[in-house]
């Protein structure tokens, strides 16, 4: 993550080699990175970290499917989604670093924080035992994140607004990918339908948490920087309803998985699987703390 500009290597100069593709551009080029006036720096940093952690943790879960996906093409598709989310995480970590005003950069946040310092929602970290569970998680996560990013394009922070604008195009495809598979499996054979239904029932207890408002989220929404997750509930429910109806499935009626004394992922209170995820994610960076790549 330490190179300055990956886009310099592949420019219009390589015009003859069309297979390389052209027109690469840094997503934040030309965006004013000054902090917006009157916005609390600590809150902006904390808020950026939450959104970054969501993306990084889901990205990590997705890349764990590499060499395990049922088809080569699906594997590439999942890796693509993971890389999109990793890109979002990197930009958000960088923004957190700028807002914090210290010397921490994206690697410090990703690799040298402890489990309880991660503020991702618990849905993101759940181990994904099968493909149905994966697409169920992805459908819920991307529906929610897309609704969030759409509101964030009007953020008073121009960097968050730019990250959101870029992210919308990516997450729209991710949601579509997940929805396609939920419909295929739900409206497939008796066996695929059963597996899809089981997966949805296992994932659904973690849906409620997505719409709980953390104090930082509330203040950022009031400041016109972020969005209050509670305001996303109806829109997400409508999408879930539409997709599951196409899949001939019903929205699971399960009670939400409670946090600890009202504290959950956003507060750094995670499920058991998060510890293993963080350990794996950080193992190389912690073993070779001076390494660069």
């Amino acid at each position: 993550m330490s190179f300055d500009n990956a886009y310099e290597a592949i420019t219009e100069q390589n015009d003859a080699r069309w297979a390389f593709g052209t027109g690469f551009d840094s997503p934040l080029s030309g965006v004013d990175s000054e902090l917006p006036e009157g916005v609390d720096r600590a809150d902006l940093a904390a808020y950026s970290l939450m959104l970054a952690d969501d993306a990084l943790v889901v990205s990590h879960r997705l890349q764990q499917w590499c060499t395990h996906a049922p088809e080569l093409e699906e594997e590439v598709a999942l890796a693509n989604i993971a890389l999109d989310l990793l890109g979002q995480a990197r930009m958000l970590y960088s923004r957190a670093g700028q807002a914090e005003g210290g010397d921490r950069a994206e690697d410090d946040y990703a690799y040298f924080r402890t489990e309880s310092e991660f503020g991702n929602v618990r849905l993101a970290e759940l181990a994904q035992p099968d493909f149905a569970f994966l697409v169920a998680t992805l459908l819920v996560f991307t529906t929610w994140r897309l609704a969030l990013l759409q509101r964030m394009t009007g953020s008073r922070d121009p960097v968050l607004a730019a990250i959101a604008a870029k992210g919308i195009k990516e997450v729209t495809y991710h949601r579509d990918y997940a929805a396609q598979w939920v419909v295929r499996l739900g409206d497939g054979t008796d066996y695929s339908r059963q597996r899809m239904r089981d997966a949805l029932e296992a994932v659904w207890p973690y849906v409620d948490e997505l719409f709980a408002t953390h104090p930082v989220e509330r203040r950022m929404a009031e400041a016109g920087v972020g969005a209050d997750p509670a305001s996303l509930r109806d829109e997400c429910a409508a999408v879930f309803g539409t997709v599951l109806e196409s899949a001939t499935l019903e929205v699971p009626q399960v009670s939400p998985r409670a946090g600890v004394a009202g504290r959950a992922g956003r507060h750094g209170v995670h499920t058991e699987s998060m510890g293993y995820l963080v350990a794996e994610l950080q193992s190389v960076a912690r073993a070779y703390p001076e390494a660069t790549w």
Partner: protein
Amino acid sequence: MSGQAGERSDASGAQWPLYEVFVRSKRGLNHVHVGSLRAADERMALRHARDVYTRRNEGVSIWVVAAADITASSPDEKDPFFAPSGDKVYRHPTFYDIPDDVPHM
């Protein structure tokens, strides 16, 4: 594009059918064959093509076609098919001056 590669999988789902992928680049005028992939149906093939063959910002348009639907010439027919045109250089419009402002020739 032999018949074997294009065979449809049976209901036991042994293997998805093969699709050929054509991508038009930003500067390209026509779709170019870039490879093949497997998918359960046309719709999935198109999405797989996007995921597998346009990851490096190559394309602005994709075609997919079931490999089984392609009728191809056979290597056995190479001579009768192609050799007769080998000595007819006059079929190229090289004996004319092409104006500079005629593109794509």
